[in-house]
């Protein structure tokens, strides 16, 4: 393994946010009351659409913005009012923010110099950090002489070189192309595994969030919609927003006809189906039934699954390993998407063909039909 600097083996610290509110203009809140605990050494991702307040929250953690109200604690100490340079946080920016007038080595040395490390220790750590991101030997180059991916690695190395208790990353891979992004995701995951700092990572790429995180907090206009490990988020979304934001989902408009003992819904085409109801309180309420494409099967015969509906194929895409079809529910205009592994046994459906679509009751979830619902953080 890598030789680690002996001076300290950073004890990563837990982070606690208590009712954080942020308003820039004093009128509208951008962050509307966040309660959040991040365990020491945890990798937490904040995922949310553009403008949902992710960067604002990160800026408050880093100390560049003060919360309008609420409290931020690192370990036992309240840091809400501490200036950025005293917080001992490593930060990685979307556009790297490597100092263009310094060499890579000087960039890496900067956080050590301001902490008063001696020359020998600085040299040792710079070498260690470069090895850490597998870029030994670029020390005397300028940032502009590195590729985008290399620059990002140096930015990560610079944020880790002083072994901070907390590392913040604001869409660090946003400027990279897809292939490089996947490669860097693995690098970041490896660094987290090796060094175990507490990481708060901001992205609006859900696959990145799922791939990297211990837990994901889904942001929706300044609030946390749901916070859970990736698998739970995918399998058991708590709201229609999370269900559509994470992964792909079919949204079928529906009306609750029965809740006890079994939830029954009527959907376009006057079919009755069943699904797991989440937060639906009254019979007759407008709601939506959500089924993921890979859990929506096109069937050979009626009996295989609890729910089945007639549809007409309107589009087919052959992916090789899977087949994706688009179908319209008979007697309505609602379109559904179904994706199935291609086992090579069954014929590929053709456009215009009638087809039977079915799902297991536990694979479908029904949510109240409000466009946005905030429940998880109150």
């Amino acid at each position, binding site marked *: 393994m890598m030789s680690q600097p002996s001076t300290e083996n950073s004890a990563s610290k837990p982070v606690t946010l208590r009712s954080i509110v942020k308003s820039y203009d004093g009128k509208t809140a951008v962050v509307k009351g966040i309660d959040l605990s991040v365990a020491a050494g945890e990798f937490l991702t904040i995922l949310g659409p553009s403008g949902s307040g992710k960067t604002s929250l990160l800026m408050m953690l*880093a*100390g*560049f913005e003060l919360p309008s109200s609420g409290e931020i604690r690192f370990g036992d100490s309240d840091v809400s009012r501490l*200036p*950025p*340079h005293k*917080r*001992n*946080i*490593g*930060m990685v*920016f979307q*556009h790297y*923010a490597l*100092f*263009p*007038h*310094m*060499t890579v080595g*000087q960039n890496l040395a*900067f*956080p050590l110099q*301001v*902490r008063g490390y001696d020359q020998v220790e600085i040299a040792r750590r710079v070498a260690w950090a470069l090895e850490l991101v597998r870029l030994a030997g670029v020390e005397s180059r300028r940032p502009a002489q590195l590729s985008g991916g290399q620059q990002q690695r140096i930015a990560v190395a*610079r*944020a880790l070189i*002083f072994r901070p208790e907390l590392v*913040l990353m604001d869409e660090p891979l946003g400027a990279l192309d897809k292939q490089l992004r996947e490669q860097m995701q693995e690098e970041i995951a490896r660094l987290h595994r090796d060094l175990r700092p507490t990481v708060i990572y901001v992205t609006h790429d859900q696959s990145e969030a799922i791939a990297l995180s211990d837990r994901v907090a889904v942001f929706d206009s300044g609030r946390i919609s749901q916070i859970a490990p990736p698998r739970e988020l995918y399998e058991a979304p708590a709201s229609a927003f999370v269900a559509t934001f994470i992964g792909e989902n079919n949204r079928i408009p529906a009306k609750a006809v029965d809740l006890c003992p079994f939830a029954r819904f009527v959907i376009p085409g006057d079919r009755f189906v069943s699904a797991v109801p989440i937060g639906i309180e009254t019979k007759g309420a407008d709601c939506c039934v959500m089924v993921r494409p890979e859990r929506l099967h096109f069937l050979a015969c009626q009996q295989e699954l609890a729910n089945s509906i007639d549809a007409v194929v309107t589009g087919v895409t052959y992916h090789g390993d899977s087949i994706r079809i688009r179908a319209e529910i008979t007697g309505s205009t609602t379109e559904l998407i179904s994706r199935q592994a291609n086992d090579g046994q069954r014929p590929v459906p053709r456009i215009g063909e009638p087809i039977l679509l079915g799902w297991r009751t536990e694979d479908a979830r029904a949510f109240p039909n409000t466009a946005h619902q905030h429940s998880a953080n109150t």
Partner: protein
Amino acid sequence: MLVVPLLSFIAVLFVVPIATMLWKGIYDAEVADLLPATTRSLALWSDEGKLPPAASLAALADDLRTLDRSGRVAELSFRMNRKRHGFRDLIERSAIRLRDEGTKLEDIDSRWSDPVSWQVLKQATEVITPDHLLNALDLDRMPDGSINRQDEGRRIYLRLLGRTILVAAIVTCICVVLGYPFAHILAAAKGKRRTVLLFVVLLPFWTSLLVRTTAWIVLLQRQGVINELLVSAGIIADRHRFALIYNFSGTIITMVYVLLPFFVLPLQAVMRGIPGQYVKAAASLGGSPIRVFQRIYLPMTMPGVAAGASLVFILSLGYYVTPALVGGRTGQLISNQIAFHIQSSLNWGLAAALGTILLALVAAMCLLLSRFAGQGRITP
């Protein structure tokens, strides 16, 4: 093809005047034109310590008579007197005495029998002459061709040049100190605040320089606003009013005011081009505000400082209007002396020579500063 208008514009308005000036600094045909025969005759004579041949003496007598008839002796005597004291009298007297036919130069004045006078005359008739340039550097060419420093009392241009450089340096330093924070505030400002600040910087450009300079006179003079305020506030006694204007300090104060926008504008442009994330990154890495300024912000804004400072320095070197109005005697700069030689003493050759030296100085500064600016970008 499309740049032809621009090129011809540059040629007419820059290259031609500058070339003319450089040429005028070393080419002076005034005496040669007034004394054509003498010039031709003396061109062949070079014996030192001996009188020129009689033919030359006769030529000069002829030339003087011609000048006398057309009433242009004064022109010659004025020009010759610049070369050597006493020549005005010598030439005018000779011209009058030469009205009598048959009078010989040697009989009019003993100085015509002195080879030194003829050497001076020969130097004056040479059309390509280093005299003006030497003069501008406080040097003097002796009749025997050797070069000495001017007499103590006549050494003024080097001192003036030194003062010009000093004023330019002081003005530049003050502009840097005052302008840097202001440029930073301006660059960081947004929306309405920025509009107001920019307006403040640009306002001077919309009023005539003359009006603004006069406004400073109102403010700074002995009975001016500042002194009145200080006296009425009891801070200084009536007898001790500050002499803020018509001297060195008047020139400095007013020039700083006039040139400050030339420093602020390029610097704030550079500052605006620096994304805020560098400073944020440095702070998050543990840099205290002072360290961040030293290590990150200052080096990154250095090209802007260099650009603004060079602009101010070079503009200061050639500044004319402001020192002329508020400089008094001790606040005069080299360009005021150039103006004096063009407008009052009519010594265009010397004016051109001084201009040449100023131009050389500016060119040297440009080279030096561009080097410095280049370094500012790469040193940490």
